[in-house]
């Protein structure tokens, strides 16, 4: 799946419009750098973020972390165009729902690889499942392009379309994790996810809650997850050890 032996435990989300923040990977040393064009970039900065992506991808790709770009589902075509430059390892596609969407994005990537002299077929696709359709069709989505190398449990708030916002334990989440895991293992893809609980995610996560989420993710069969804050990188690496 990967050419190097990078275990890809910690996928650090970096705001693509803020190159100083993005280069904090040198300090936090995630296994994977995820340059984000989605939620961590304010809408007014999206175009600026796209314009700076080529340089950022090259800088990061030349370093130790693998460079991925997370696109926005609604603007994924423009985002992929902005991301496909030397140094790119793959695209993180949040919220795919049908196989056709995945196939189409894979074909766009192929065209850009040809156009820009990148190695044909080398750019990976990581699918983050975020909806009932996505979880139900997980196998079809993962089979829709040979580029797919990982299947992840995406933003919990979007999976919550399936139910009310939980205050305690989100039991449905475990069912969705099971589904993503089974599909990923069946097809030889990396399963991405952690057993996040309400109040343990992103900016409000503590060291303890992050390590626990990652460790329990590992016990459940997952091998890495996204890190919403820089501090989570070390904690996630510890949990997935």
């Amino acid at each position, binding site marked *: 799946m990967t050419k190097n032996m990078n275990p890809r435990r910690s996928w650090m989300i970096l705001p693509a419009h803020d190159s100083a923040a993005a280069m904090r990977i040198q300090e936090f040393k995630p296994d994977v750098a995820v340059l984000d064009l989605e939620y961590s970039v304010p809408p007014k900065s999206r175009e600026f973020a796209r314009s700076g992506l080529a340089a950022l991808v090259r800088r990061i790709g030349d370093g130790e972390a693998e460079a991925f770009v997370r696109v926005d589902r609604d603007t994924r075509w423009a985002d992929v165009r902005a991301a496909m430059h030397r140094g790119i390892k793959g695209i993180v596609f949040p919220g795919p729902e049908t196989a056709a969407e995945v196939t189409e994005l894979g074909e766009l990537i192929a065209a850009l690889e040809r156009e820009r002299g990148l190695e044909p077929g080398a750019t990976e696709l990581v699918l983050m499942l975020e909806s009932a359709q996505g979880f139900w069709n997980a*196998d079809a989505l993962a089979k829709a392009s040979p580029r797919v190398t990982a299947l992840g449990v995406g933003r919990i708030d979007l999976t919550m379309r399936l139910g009310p916002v939980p205050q305690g334990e989100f039991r449905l989440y*475990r*069912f969705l994790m*099971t*589904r993503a*895991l*089974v*599909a*990923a*293992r*069946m097809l030889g893809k990396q*399963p991405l996810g952690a057993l996040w609980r309400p109040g343990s995610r992103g900016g409000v996560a503590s060291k303890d809650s992050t390590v626990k989420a990652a*460790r*329990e993710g*590992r*016990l*459940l*069969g*997952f*091998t890495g997850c996204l890190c919403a804050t820089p501090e989570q990188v070390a904690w996630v690496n510890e949990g997935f050890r």
Partner: protein
Amino acid sequence: MSERLMPKYIRRSLLSLPIDDPQLGEQAFASWADAIILDFVRKPGTDWQKELRARMPAAIVAAARGGAEVFIRVNSDRAAAELDATVFSGIAGVVLKGVNGAEGIAQASARLDALEASRGIAAGSLEIDVEVNTAAGVWNSLEIARASRRFGTFTVNEPELCRNLGMHPEPVLEFEALEYIKSQLITVATSVGGQAQGMSYPLSLTQKNAGEEDLRKAVQRARDTGFKGAACHHASWIQVCNEGFRPSPGEIAYYRKVIAVFAEGLKRGMASVPIDGKMIDVPVDLRAKLYLEWANRAQARDDEKARAHEQ
């Protein structure tokens, strides 16, 4: 095949025995297992098929001595050759291991059609059970269960399935990691008129020789999850499974009372009657009758095995 309210098979305890065991007949006889699954080894550098063909008929007879149903465990990826070598009159069916999709079942079923015809076995009588130990077996479980009318049961091989899924269930988890997978397999098997076999966590994984009290509770949890029996990794599990995967004496007494009191209430023109503070109505009465039928069938199976032991 339609869904059944009660177990299709009274198959509470499944014991695996190798055909190479010189004590095969004695072990099977002494075990009181409802089902014996025969395992064989393909010895390299030999005509293993010829050897097995010569040995299987006697092994099947030996395994059946105590009144158990006899199955042969076959690897799905080499099913045709293994079925040819092992399927003989006297078995109830085969346990296919490593099935990843409907195709594996369809191929095995076609093979059994031919073997039934050539070896004097009633057409369509051999059952195909599936031991689930891969992610694909779980994901494709519905297609697998629907692939042949021969499909009978799913058995969850939890240690192998966990390895395949990259899971490392440990007691720090506050819940059962395979909960949803087990729920799926039980529901799918039942939806085609079959059933599922498995043990509850954590014994399902540790498979250790727990004390009788712990084992009893584990079997009750498994039964109340929807499993109708379990693979027994220790001979000591068999009796507890035989007693646990059926209505308990306490339940039988209670349901007898339910039926009697409800019948009395109906005569007095009532639609529901109270027992010990609970309201008894038609569905509870129906469940009571089903549980008694289940208990009777389990008892009949025990009597059948007892007769086999007298001979």
